[in-house]
């Protein structure tokens, strides 16, 4: 029982890493970023590269990966996505445009990564030893990734809840038009949220690469998972994403261990459907007024 719970929590931590960034991007900047998974893979490749080339720990690599991802994505938002935001007449129109634009962007990322790293599989062995918790063994790398995911989640939540910058971000998430009326620079906050989301996602990729075999085209898997989690949790609320990620992790592990591993995907989608049917705004989402 402990095994299912802990394995599920570790998996949920991984899912939180995959989805928290997308939540910021979609919730605040209103960009449904379909290139999210590719950003994650890019973070993983960067960690792979510094680890194999220079024996730098993937955790130390976060210090570089996160700022670079932030900068690159801040630029992507400012140069490529802001024109879409400007011309969009409604939130719906922006969603459609941003889905198309970032879908294209995901192919660009895949192409660039195949060109830089080739199409092969990438993995390495880091902290692949066992650690015993309540009599069962778990990978140290998964436990470390979970701990850092918790730190990132806690940091984000505190920052969003208790700082002025966080307040501005929440204001934009709730209503960009009203936020502008009270003097918030909405485009700047959106760019910040988009870059920050990408930094979280790329950091997640660097951590996940410790135990996940990646290749240049695997990103779409992560994007799909992240979409489910963000929509389940409620758009624009980081707590919802974390809770949804943990629920999904524990549910999938339970189904895999007790019923059948073949049904994990089915279990995930049943949960997803249930949320859509009974709480369409997501677990922590606010009903549209």
């Amino acid at each position, binding site marked *: 029982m402990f*095994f*299912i719970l802990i*394995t599920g929590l*570790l*998996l949920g931590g*991984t899912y939180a890493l995959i989805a928290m960034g997308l939540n910021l991007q979609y919730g605040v900047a209103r960009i449904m970023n379909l290139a999210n998974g590719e950003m994650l893979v890019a973070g993983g490749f960067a960690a792979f590269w510094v680890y194999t080339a220079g024996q730098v720990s993937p955790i130390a690599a976060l210090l570089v990966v996160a700022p670079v991802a932030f900068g690159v994505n801040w630029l992507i938002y400012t140069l490529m996505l802001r024109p879409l935001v400007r011309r969009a007449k409604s939130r719906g129109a922006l969603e459609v445009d941003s889905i198309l634009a970032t879908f294209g962007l995901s192919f660009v990322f*895949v*192409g660039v990564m*195949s060109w830089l790293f*080739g*199409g*092969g*599989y990438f*993995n*390495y*062995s880091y902290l*692949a*030893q*066992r650690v015993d918790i309540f009599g*069962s*063994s*778990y*990978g140290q790398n998964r436990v470390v990734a979970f701990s850092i995911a918790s730190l990132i989640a806690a940091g984000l939540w505190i920052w969003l809840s208790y700082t002025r910058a966080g307040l501005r971000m929440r204001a934009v998430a709730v209503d960009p038009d009203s936020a502008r009326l009270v003097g918030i620079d909405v485009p700047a906050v959106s760019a910040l949220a988009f870059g920050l989301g990408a930094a979280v996602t790329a950091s997640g990729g660097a951590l996940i690469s410790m*135990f*996940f*075999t990646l*290749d*240049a*085209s*695997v990103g779409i*898997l992560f994007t799909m998972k992240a979409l489910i989690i963000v929509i389940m949790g409620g758009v624009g609320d980081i707590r919802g994403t974390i809770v949804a990620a943990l629920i999904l992790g524990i549910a*999938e*592990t339970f189904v*895999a*261990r007790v019923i*059948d*591993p*073949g049904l*994990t*995907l089915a279990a995930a989608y049943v949960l997803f459907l249930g949320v859509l049917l009974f709480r369409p705004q997501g677990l922590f989402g606010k009903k549209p007024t």
Partner: protein
Amino acid sequence: MKRRTVMMSMATAALLALGAASAQAQDVIRLGAAAPKTGPLAGGADVTHWPAVRLWVHQTNEAGGLQLADGPALIELIEYDDQTNPQQAIQAAQRMATQDRVDFMVAPYSTGLNLAAAPIFSQLGYPQITGSNVTNQQPELSAQFPGMFFVLGRTGGMAEDTAQVLVDLRTAGDIGDRVALVNVADAFGIEMAGISRAVLEENGFEIVYQTSYPLGTQDIAPIIDGARAAEPDAFIAWSYPGDTFALTDQAIVQNFAPKVFFTAVATAFPSYAGRFGAQAEGVMGMGGVNPDDPAFQAFAEAHMDLTGQGPDFWASASTYATLEILGQAIEATGSKDRAVVMAYLQDHANIYDTVLGPIQFDETNNNERYWTVGQWQDGVFRGVAARGRDGVSDIILKDGWD
């Protein structure tokens, strides 16, 4: 006058030489190749397929090309990405035939894409010599698509030999009856697991744990936990690359160390040993080679020199062999006329000299001499079971992970 004659004859000689050279350069065999560069199987194709194809083209051109009846012809390779998408594979084949007008095509990568492309290869009249396609349907496929050839072997042979390895170990008193059997839930995994289960049960083994998981699953801790709880003597997984790595990783983490630990695709990749190092010792997988064979060693060295990476210890060599076979058929007929080459390939009396050793197709266009099971031993993935191949190594028991 005299001087002029000399000049003239020199000029004529130069012209003649030039003419000969340009005649040589003019004759080109266009070879089309569509295989994954993106998509789920890109990682596998990047290890197994593309380097072998490029290596053969490079070496053939270095050696002056293929000898046709009217002189040598260089190979021009035209590459497409099929995105691991059967629809794209079909479109690419069509495009190569009609737009690029290639003379021959390299068969696609993987069982699924080869099956998907078989009708279009057949319809367009191109030989499809497959090197990374394992199936049990050779009789039906070759009847339906007479231009489809099979170098890598039969799934039945692989599953039977894997079971036979267990039977032999049990006879020797090394293992008991308990087997855990898992598979990835796609055509490959389901077929392999079905055959192995039947063969194992026929031989009196007890399947103490059996399950499957969706394609793309890498969170595999519950499966290893379940398998471990069933206390098997042998663990057999019909897995794909991502899950092959994840299963091994979790088995190490949970210290699940049965005497036989078998994972399928990617176990034979050099990166498997790169990732797990000494812990890979004793792990078994599909395929294998005879690493002591000078032909394989030369192939591996050339592979390393050209592409900067070693070949895998299974389908790299057979992919390369498919092109050796095509090249030898072209040279034997002295023609790049597809119908003529096809007729030569369909003549089952012909024997080809390849990196795998001699290959002769049987009446179902199948190569019945192939490696079935391999095992990591001292950093090399040695073939420990084969159909009709020499140099089979002895099996060692897996002795824990640490």
